[in-house]
Structures are given as structure tokens and as C-alpha cells.
């Protein structure tokens, strides 16, 4: 394997296939991979279902990353602890992202004062392409550059857009492969629900 290959590609050749004859139950493994929203959050689960978002188990922590933003700032995910994060992976050539990104920008303007943080992670494009795109669509939320694709690989992103939602306590709530109606009533209800959750360190209700 050549070192010049993008990290996202490097990450996957190690995938093997172990073929196993006979009847073995892998139900447990499947359950872990599929994830499930804990049963005590039926309202949240219903919203995720309506929005076609895949929920995580309550203990799933998203991988931590840091990267350089379009405005040359070093952004670390840890800075956002206590906020509701929407982490969206995108590229300027991604047609469906062109609908998602301005919608997320409007949500950012509406909810940021209450603790919503939208962060875009670009897929291996150069700074100029990202700058043009941000200007064209009027995006003001942070756009992280991922020239070598390391953050994309860390999150297992292979299709765009892919969007992750993280709660105030830092746990991964749900993700979506493909575009969603981010300004719809259920999406707003989901944001409101997550914003209403206590931030870490806050006294539990």
C-alpha cells in the first residue's frame, strides 16, 4: 500500500471476510452494530424515526477530532462540550449537500445562542474550493478542512452528506446518511429536545 493513498482508503483494505459455515448466532453483534435508542426516551426515538435518523446506544461516544478551519483556526471537538453539536460531512461537488448546508446555516443562526453548534467537515478538498463554496452559500458556521481525509475515515464516512448529532453530554445521539429535512418541524423538535437536556456538570433534574 502506498503512503500517498488517502487515509479514507487506507482504512478499509484491512476489511476481511471470515466466512463461517454452519449455524452460528450473531444476533448480539448485529444488535451492537445496529444500535438502539434506550427505551426510556420514547419521544426522542419517535423523532429520530420520523426524521429517518439512526440512533446510537446511550453509551456511544463520537470519536474526538481536531482540525484546521477555513478561517485558519484550530478547532477541537472538546471546545464544544456542553453544546448540541451537528457535525455534517460535505463536499462542494455533493449535490445533496447544497440543500442541507444552507438549511443548517439557518438553524445555526436561529439556535446558536441557545447552545446549538453546527460544524461542517469537508471531504478532502482544498481551501480555495471550500472558501468559494462558503461564500456562495453564505455559510458562517465553522468549516473544518480534512485534506488527508483522516476525520472522514475516523467517522467511517464514505457517502455525502453524512451528518452526526451529539448531545450536550457529549454522547452521540444519531446519524443520517444522505440529506434530511433539517428545518422541518420534527427536526426543530429534536433540536429543542436536545437543547433542553442538562449540560454536563449541571444538577440533574
Amino acid at each position, binding site marked *: 500500500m502506498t503512503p500517498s493513498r488517502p487515509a479514507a482508503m487506507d*482504512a478499509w483494505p484491512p*476489511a476481511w*471476510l471470515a466466512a*463461517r459455515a*454452519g449455524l452460528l448466532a450473531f444476533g448480539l453483534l448485529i444488535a451492537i452494530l445496529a444500535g438502539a435508542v434506550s427505551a426510556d426516551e420514547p419521544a426522542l426515538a419517535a423523532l429520530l424515526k420520523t426524521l429517518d435518523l439512526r440512533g446510537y446506544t446511550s453509551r456511544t461516544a463520537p470519536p474526538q477530532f481536531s482540525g484546521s478551519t477555513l478561517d485558519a483556526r484550530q478547532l477541537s471537538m472538546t471546545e464544544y462540550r456542553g453544546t448540541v453539536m451537528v457535525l455534517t460531512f460535505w463536499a462542494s461537488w455533493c449535490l445533496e449537500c447544497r440543500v442541507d448546508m444552507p438549511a443548517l446555516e439557518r438553524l445555526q443562526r436561529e439556535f446558536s445562542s441557545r447552545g446549538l453548534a453546527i460544524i461542517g467537515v469537508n471531504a478532502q478538498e482544498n481551501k480555495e474550493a471550500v472558501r468559494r463554496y462558503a461564500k456562495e452559500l453564505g455559510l458562517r458556521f465553522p468549516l473544518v478542512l480534512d485534506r488527508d481525509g483522516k476525520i472522514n475515515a475516523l467517522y*467511517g464516512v*464514505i457517502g455525502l452528506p453524512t451528518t452526526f448529532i451529539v448531545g450536550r453530554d457529549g454522547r452521540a445521539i444519531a*446519524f443520517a446518511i444522505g440529506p434530511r429535512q433539517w428545518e422541518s418541524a420534527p427536526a426543530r423538535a429534536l433540536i429543542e429536545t436536545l437543547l433542553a437536556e442538562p449540560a454536563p456538570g449541571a444538577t440533574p433534574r
Partner: protein
Amino acid sequence: MARKASYKSFEDLGIQNLGASANLTFSQQTFAESLKLPYPLLSDFPDRKLMRSYGVFNEKTMTAHRSFFLIDPQGIIRKKWMVENGGTTVVYSDTLLRDIREVLAKR
């Protein structure tokens, strides 16, 4: 993914497919959902024990050689495929299925 499309052919032969990589479970979950994979993925992160025990881990590049193993119900490896060209050659399900049928016919 060819393997996804021909998953039923593997099932019909009584084969359970498993994918393994040194990626985080989190990353694998996104990957599996993106491709709608019908079989489980196993995370060999961080110690890469599985890859090492199968002898396909390259300590220098910290990557595994792309490979396939056919394991029988007694846990014995009946066949292995090491992907050529440093793991970049596409392995088609038809090739795997043909070889598996051959192995099964000999039993």
C-alpha cells in the same frame, strides 16, 4: 458492493459473512449503514489482535493485507484468499463462491 448483492448466495451455502477491520466500531457503523451491509463488522481496534493472529498484519505499515478466510463449523480454516497487488485487486464474489463450492464438494 458485490458481496452485498450476492449475500444470499453465501447464505444459501450456509456461510455467515463477517467483516473485520481496525477501525473504530463507531466508524464501522457509519460504513455499514452507508452500504446497508447485511452482515456484521468486527472491530479489531486498537490492538489488532485478530489481524496478527491470522498473520495478515504488516507491522511496518500498520495495515492488514486484505484477505478472506473460509472457516468450517469446527473452526478450521479451509481456504484463504490473499488479495493481490497489495490488497488493491478487486475480489469478486463469484470467485469466492466458486472456490467455496469446490471446498464444500470435497467434504
